[in-house]
């Protein structure tokens, strides 16, 4: 995750979120990421100045052997949700007030049988539901990648579908 120069039309500092990254934000900024079959879930707690987002690659940690060459905290959708939810609760967030939004899960290689995009979304919805979090908005599936910008000060998420294949 790295900071990039802010756009002239955007007063917010901008952060680019790469695959397998995630964080809690307490300062206003615009978090950008690009999704294909990967999933981003945004969390926003109105009035409490807390926001979070991750960009995960695969559905469930239990389905994969440990790989010490890659960071694990935000590689899997299930663990990513639990990690950020725990962090938000530790910082005093009221679970019932957390707004979650889900994005990504495109089938960027349709017909290949193993639809990881859909499984990523199923996992995100299931874990959020079982964690008692409300999904207020989502834009998932399809065959196109998505560019996403998340405002950590308002919880707004702007999505643009993109035609070319992306990696995340």
């Amino acid at each position: 995750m790295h900071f990039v120069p802010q756009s002239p039309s955007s007063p917010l500092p901008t952060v680019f979120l790469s695959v397998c990254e995630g964080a809690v934000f307490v300062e206003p900024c615009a978090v950008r990421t690009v999704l294909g079959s990967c999933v981003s879930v945004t969390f926003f707690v109105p009035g409490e100045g807390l926001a979070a987002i991750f960009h995960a690659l695969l559905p469930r940690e239990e389905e994969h052997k440990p790989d010490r060459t890659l960071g694990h905290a935000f590689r899997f959708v299930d663990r990513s949700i639990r990690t950020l939810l725990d962090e938000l609760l530790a910082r005093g967030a009221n679970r019932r007030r957390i707004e979650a939004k889900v994005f990504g899960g495109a089938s960027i290689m349709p017909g290949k049988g193993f639809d990881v995009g859909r499984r990523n979304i199923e996992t995100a919805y299931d874990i959020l539901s079982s964690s008692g979090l409300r999904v207020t908005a989502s834009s998932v599936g399809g065959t196109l990648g998505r560019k996403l910008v998340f405002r950590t000060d308002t919880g707004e998420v702007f999505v643009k579908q993109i035609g070319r294949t992306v990696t995340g």
Partner: protein
Amino acid sequence: MARFLVVDDSISVRQFFQGVLAGRGECDLAVDGIEGVRLAGRAIMDRQPYDVIFLDIMMPQVSGLTACRKIREMERAAGLPPERVSHVVIVSSLSDPATMLEAQFESGADAYLTKPVDPGAVREMLCSAGVEQTLLAVLSDEDA
């Protein structure tokens, strides 16, 4: 000028969208799925499809998910290019995983909003549909 269609059997929801969309384009209203499909079909036949369609799910006779499938079928039958098809947003009080999955993976919706919906959420959808300029230039074409 952008064209919107709101399909919901609740008059308060239709009035909410009518208020939020006022000044942003033309807004047609339908009171159930049958009327929604009829209006969307007429727009497709006239080669003036709606830019954004907001669809409730739980409506008498034809649900929003069925209506969404029918609209997608009509768009395909009319041979609309991808950039002309409507951006369909399901707006429902249902928030269970199965319904949200079906709406976007099987029924062809582009996005899903869970009621209650605030004006900011509608604006996010308009930006994502490309009918309203996002404040953030980081979504600009040259950046894609």
